[in-house]
């Protein structure tokens, strides 16, 4: 076209590139649409929820599309030829986006339930209000889905901020709550501090290696080695990632925010934020596999392992003495992040080695199961908190009688969080430990991590069972039955049923480890994700991260 003649010399991304990132684009489109629509039709919350739901559906659709494209070998970098790639589209990112989209949909479900409860019941139910809430939710999702999709440190940092900044505001989204204000204050101060340290680390890494492209940095490291400054810079950069995962010693924000923030937001952060952080960590750790000498890969793995052990131990110990169930779940989420980090600590082996992939798959399946367990537990806690006005342990008294359809799924979710056998939580944990054990064939120190994980599981039994005991064994006749919105019942029971189903299926497949996770996901996830873990693309593999857009069609 003559119109664009002045632009002829400028590079433009190809339509296929854009199609591969349709999920992100639809998120951005939803954000803009939300603003325009609320300008046209007034500030309706239901409109916001609708648009966000539509965005979630669009993301799922585009993920299926992208998965198909990725299967046929399509790759995108969104940079002009010759420049290092800024984004990658592989099965791993597609899976993460799918996970986030499903989760987003359930969060909106939870929100609708809460809004309905607030409208019908006489209780004062703080509803995070306005289309802004959904704008922020979608933006944080955009940041999270980009966190796992980039091999570039700069984009990683910006994506982390894009995920964090809206989250800070979401935590304060109930403006009448003092706890929310305080939680947001702590969250933002913590986050800003870690982000600044991360930026400093990034600047040093840029100076040391002359690039911000992760594979290029790994290549430079394997040639030149890692100086002391490099370790400092790496540690400073990982501080920002550890903040997202809420790894010890950067976990302080987590319980406060989960307690103070509205429950939808707490649920969202408990899974999505950690999942994205873990994906980012995996990408970094995995980049230092392959040709990187063991003198560099091993200390990194050791560090991650130590932090993981400390994270799950501290999380579990702190959860023991909590009276607030939300806070207890917050510490439990710290502990679970620790479990998942353990798999990231398995030192990546040479390209094509079988050790890494079970670890990746373990984390991926753990995340999926964890999403269900956490959603159920937080959902029930939300119902109780909404009708009782408190989320202390005392509010759960006699729930088995007062609302059996909440108490039973809650118990299933909690047992699954412990990791008891017939449930999906057990299968997830089993694969995690199995992956660790497989890695321990080569690095025997990994047995220590297995040991720590098992001990911690035993410890965690105590505080989960405390809630169950309060629900079924303690009762007070004076307490009346709970009025629970139907949507909430559906959510909690849906989670529980899925957990049971998954657990049963997985249990049957437990004998063959290598098959188990595949089969598990095959039934759990939509068809396009079936082979997600089979095709997990890591550096060095045949479908590894694309550098320089070399094999773009």
């Amino acid at each position, binding site marked *: 076209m003559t119109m664009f003649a002045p632009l002829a010399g*400028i*590079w433009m*991304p190809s339509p296929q590139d854009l199609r591969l990132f349709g999920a992100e684009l639809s998120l*951005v489109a939803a*954000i803009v649409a939300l*603003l325009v629509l609320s300008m046209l039709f007034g*500030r309706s919350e239901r409109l916001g929820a609708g648009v966000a739901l539509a965005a979630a559906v669009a993301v799922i659709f585009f993920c299926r599309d992208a998965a198909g494209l990725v299967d046929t070998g399509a790759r995108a970098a*969104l*940079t*002009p030829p010759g*420049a290092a790639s*800024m*984004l990658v589209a592989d099965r791993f990112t597609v899976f993460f986006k799918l996970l986030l989209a499903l989760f987003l949909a359930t969060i909106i479900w939870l929100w609708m339930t809460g809004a309905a409860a607030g409208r019908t019941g006489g209780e004062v139910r703080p509803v995070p*209000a*306005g289309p*802004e809430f959904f*704008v*922020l939710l979608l*933006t944080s999702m*955009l*940041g999270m889905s*980009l966190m796992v999709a*980039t091999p*570039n440190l*700069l*984009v990683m940092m*910006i*994506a982390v*901020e*894009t995920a964090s*900044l*809206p989250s800070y*505001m979401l935590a*304060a*989204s109930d*403006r*009448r709550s003092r706890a929310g204000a305080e939680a947001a204050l702590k969250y933002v101060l913590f986050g800003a501090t870690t982000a600044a340290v991360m930026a400093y680390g990034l600047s040093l890494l840029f*100076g*040391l290696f*002359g690039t911000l492209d992760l594979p290029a940095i790994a290549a430079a490291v394997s040639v030149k080695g890692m*100086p*002391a*400054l490099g370790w*400092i810079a790496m540690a400073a950069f990982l501080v920002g990632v550890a903040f997202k995962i809420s790894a010890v010693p950067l976990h302080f924000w987590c319980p406060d925010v989960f307690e103070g923030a509205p429950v939808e937001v707490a649920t969202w952060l408990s899974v999505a934020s950690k999942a994205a952080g873990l994906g980012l960590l995996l990408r970094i750790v995995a980049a230092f596999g392959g040709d990187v000498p063991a003198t560099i890969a091993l200390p990194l793995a050791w560090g991650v392992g130590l932090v993981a052990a400390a994270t799950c131990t501290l999380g579990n110990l702190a959860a023991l003495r909590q009276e607030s169930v939300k806070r207890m779940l917050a510490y439990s989420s710290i502990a679970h992040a620790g479990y998942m980090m353990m798999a990231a600590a398995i030192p990546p082996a040479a390209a094509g080695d079988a050790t890494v992939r079970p670890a990746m798959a373990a984390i991926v399946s753990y995340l999926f199961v964890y999403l269900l367990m956490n959603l159920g537990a937080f959902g029930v806690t939300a119902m109780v908190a909404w009708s009782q006005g408190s989320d202390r342990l005392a509010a759960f008294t006699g729930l088995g009688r007062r609302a059996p359809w909440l108490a039973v799924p809650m118990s299933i979710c909690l047992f699954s969080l412990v990791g008891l056998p017939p449930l999906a939580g057990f299968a997830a944990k089993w694969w995690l430990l199995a992956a660790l054990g497989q890695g321990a064939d080569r690095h025997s120190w990994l047995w220590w991590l297995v040991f720590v994980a098992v001990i911690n599981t035993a410890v965690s039994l105590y505080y989960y069972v405390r809630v169950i005991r309060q629900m079924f064994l303690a009762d007070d006749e004076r307490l009346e039955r709970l009025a629970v919105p139907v949507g909430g019942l559906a959510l909690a029971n849906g989670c529980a049923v899925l957990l049971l189903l998954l657990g049963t299926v997985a249990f049957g497949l437990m004998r063959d480890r290598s098959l188990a996770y595949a089969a598990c996901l095959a039934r759990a996830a939509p068809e396009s994700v079936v082979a997600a873990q089979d095709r997990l693309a890591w550096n060095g593999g045949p479908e590894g991260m694309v550098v320089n857009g070399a094999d773009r069609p």
Partner: protein
Amino acid sequence: MTGSNRLSIVAAVLVWLARAGPVWARGPRGPGPADWIGIELEAVMFYLLGGLAAVCAVGCVLSSRVVRMALFLFGALGAVAGLYLLLHANFLAAIQLIVYAGGTLVVIIFGIMLSSASAAARYRARPAEKAAGAAVGLLLLAGLVTAVGRIDWSEGIAAAPSAPTVDGLGRALLTTYLVPFELSSVLLLAVMIGAAWLAGSGRK
């Protein structure tokens, strides 16, 4: 003494002064007395601006009033903008002034004004904290400087660095850095909306 006499004496003195003149102006050039003050302008500017930035940074730590801290931050920002000019990053210097000093800092000062009970409000650290802070800070600084100093920065330098132009930077932002560029624009949009929503008075 007549006027013309006086004038001639003055002229003689001037000529004598000129002949005596400053040693470095006289030449001959090359290795010799003219070279011993081989200070480049860049070095002097660096020490002035860097010194200002460092003093302001230390002032930020030591000051107990928030407004003073903001003022020190302003000094540091300005000095860093000057350093960008020294580093041939003209555009960045201008952006630093517009966005950082003219935008971010105004927001911060705005926040201080709205959130402090009185102009004289002070927040003092406890002595133990001060001591611990100083020790940790100095240790950290020493560690960082040692680590930085142990690296031979001269290796692997590409060809003579050319000063990037505004044009080049603009092109890079829309090609190589397209993804971060668009991402940060979405981020700014969301932040603008969210901040206005959060700080608003709560009316619907």
